[in-house]
């Protein structure tokens, strides 16, 4: 070009574009930049061949390296399982009480059991295992069916009043509305309430004791301390599954409610049940 214009300050040619005396310098991109740019394009092309990329009608190209994020998750999960295998094997081989006695194993089982608990148990027992009316609090030291680790394990494995499992823990309190008079129900309720607190009308306690002796000692025992063989609750302590107080007791005498817990062995397997048992045992009430 004959009319090439060169900028005075920089000594660089201009593009010929001019706006009100302002000219554009003709500074090409640095070569390293251009090369890098082309390298990234080549890289991108190679990448789409190596990795899953191009959408097709029903799926996408698989990529020649055979990478897939699902496989990666799979292998990571497998690696996590491998990392746990030492503990899991030990849990499979040992009894729950042995697991609870081993610091490292207990720590693992409690963590694993807590996770299983949060998925499977919180719906009834609550997120803190604190229970609610009709659903036992697992933190306390009152156990219907026993609070030793192996007893807890047994309960979790086979459930309570779960008809599909022949080994389930089974018991049923009769509805005393059909057996004794309403007056006797009032009396026995007052007697039972008096075992752990004050009652409104203490004149009912004496006759109530007699009713209790005739109808209740078979399961709840002479001293009303209950019997874990039948899951018969201790009536002298401060813990009431269906609320405390004469009214609530009378209700339960008249037509008792019975909770059902499913058997978990088939669903969770032996290892997870053991972990759960150790976890529940560690909540503070374990015997």
């Amino acid at each position, binding site marked *: 070009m004959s009319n090439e214009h060169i900028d005075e*300050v*920089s000594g660089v040619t201009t593009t010929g574009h001019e706006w009100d005396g302002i000219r554009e*310098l003709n*500074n090409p991109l640095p070569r390293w930049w251009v090369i890098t740019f082309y390298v990234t394009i080549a890289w991108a092309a190679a990448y789409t061949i190596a990795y899953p990329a191009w959408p097709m009608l029903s799926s996408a190209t698989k990529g020649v390296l055979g990478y897939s994020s699902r496989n990666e998750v799979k292998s990571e999960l497998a690696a996590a399982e491998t990392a746990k295998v030492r503990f899991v094997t030990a849990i499979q081989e040992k009894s729950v009480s042995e697991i609870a006695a081993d*610091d490292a194993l*207990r720590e693992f089982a409690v963590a694993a059991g807590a996770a299983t608990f949060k998925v499977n148990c919180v719906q009834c027992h609550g*997120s*803190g*295992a*604190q229970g609610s009316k009709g659903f036992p*609090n697992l*933190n*306390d*030291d*009152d156990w219907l069916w026993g609070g030793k680790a192996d007893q807890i394990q047994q309960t979790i494995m086979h459930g309570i009043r779960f008809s599909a499992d022949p080994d389930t823990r089974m018991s049923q309190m009769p509805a005393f509305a059909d057996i004794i008079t309403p007056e006797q129900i009032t009396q026995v309720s007052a007697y039972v309430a008096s075992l*752990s607190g004050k009652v409104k009308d203490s004149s009912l306690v004496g006759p109530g004791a007699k009713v209790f002796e005739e109808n209740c000692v078979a399961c709840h025992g002479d001293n009303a301390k209950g019997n874990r063989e039948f899951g018969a609750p*201790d009536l002298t*302590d*401060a*813990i009431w599954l269906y609320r405390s107080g004469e009214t609530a007791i009378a209700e339960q005498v008249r037509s008792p409610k019975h909770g059902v817990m499913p058997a978990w062995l088939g669903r969770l397997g032996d290892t997870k049940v053991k972990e759960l048992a150790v976890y529940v045992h*560690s909540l*503070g*009430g374990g015997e």
Partner: protein
Amino acid sequence: MLDQTQVERLEAEAVNSAKTRQPLYAARKKIFPKRASGRFRQFKWLVMAVTLGIYYLTPWLRWDRGPFAPDQAVLLDLANRRFYFFFVEIWPQEFYYVAGLLMMAGVGLFLVTSTVGRAWCGYACPQTVWVDLFLVVERAIEGDRNARIKLEAAPWTARKLVLRISKHAIWLLIAVATGGAWIFYFADAPTLALNVAAGTAAPVAYVTILVLTATTYTFGGLMREQVCTYMCPWPRIQAAMLDESSLTVTYNDWRGEPRSRHAKKAVAAGQPTGDCVDCNACVAVCPMGIDIRDGQQLECITCALCIDACDGVMDKLGRERGLIAYATLSDYNANMSLATAGGTTAVNPTLVRTTDGAFASSLAHFHLRNIFRLRTFIYLGAWSAIGLVLLYSLLTRERLELNVLHDRNPQFVTLADGSIRNGYTVKLLNMIPEPRTIEVSLQGLPGAEMNAVGIDIPASQSFTTVAEPDRLKVLRVFVRQPSAQITGIARTFTFRIRDQAGVESAEYTATFNAPETAK
């Protein structure tokens, strides 16, 4: 009086001078600093040896801490989250010591800058030290300034190729060594060295070496003064740190001007002549490519090499040293005022000299008391205050700590006998590298007893447990209080831990919750 024949005039141009400063989109002009020699060069060699020595050797120092902790004197153990510095061991939550040290470094920089200018930039900054090191290599291979300029302009011959390849190869070696030394601060140095050599070290070690090799080579070999001028924020901040009493590298116009290359002629013509013979020695040695005679400028890192160069020339000419010297702005201004008769004339060097050629007694000189002024006292005060607080806190810090988390769900549990139980996660921090037997006890909760999961002891007011060396021990503790002794829905009490063999103890105030019905 003058014998200028001894002084070679150098064809040196200050490429970064304000007068000839190029637009930012112009290509960089290379700088070929000439070798300087003199007091400040000697001092810089010394600083370089000490700083590089510290950098390369520190990870190899050993410090015995017993069988439960590493024996490396300085170790940043990221995997285990411990920082070891000789007798000090820092846990992550004690990182404020590092924050404190950084504050001291910051204030210390203010202090140094306000007294002796950019001494950090000129002597101790890694950029300066490594550029110096790279320049040593460059000079050894390609020769001094003129030879390098010639080589740069020469066409590509076999000789140039060999020289260039060997220079860059040695630079790369230094860069690899720099990156290589860095990783030894993060793991046991002898083990890691073997692993790195065998190719079995962690990938992050190799990546770190690679990255630091790249930065060292690029910053020290290729970018050099551009890092200081364009990338570093410190040159911008320093203006606020300097004042009229700070020592900076100064060209003393009041005795140098008017500069003359032909002083004899000028004297013969009866014109006033200054001490500056315009030999450009100060420009040739400058690693930043500036002319100090233009006055204070952003680019100047005060490496003082121009002082050495000028002093050498003055010695040859038999004149007093210090035409370029460390001087304060106030002294400089006073002397300028003298030399220009209060600003009424151009610089006239005869005004600062007596008739027999000696300097006038009215010239201002630097005094040590210039260092001791309110500003430096404030910096020194802040610096020492932070240091003393850190030191005090370091000497009195707890090596046994207790943290307690109260269970929130459930907050309390009613037990069969009506008593109330609360659960706590108790964390014992044994922060020394020795196992300790710790007694955990309850205080301020009448009738209460506790037990811990996994510790087979009867419920009581206290129990002992062994805390592993340098570890956190987590206990699940259940505290139980009889219902008769419960006084309200929330009651504070104290967990106390005590080292049975030592004197250390720690306390934590926790809350005991009870239902309203339990009162």
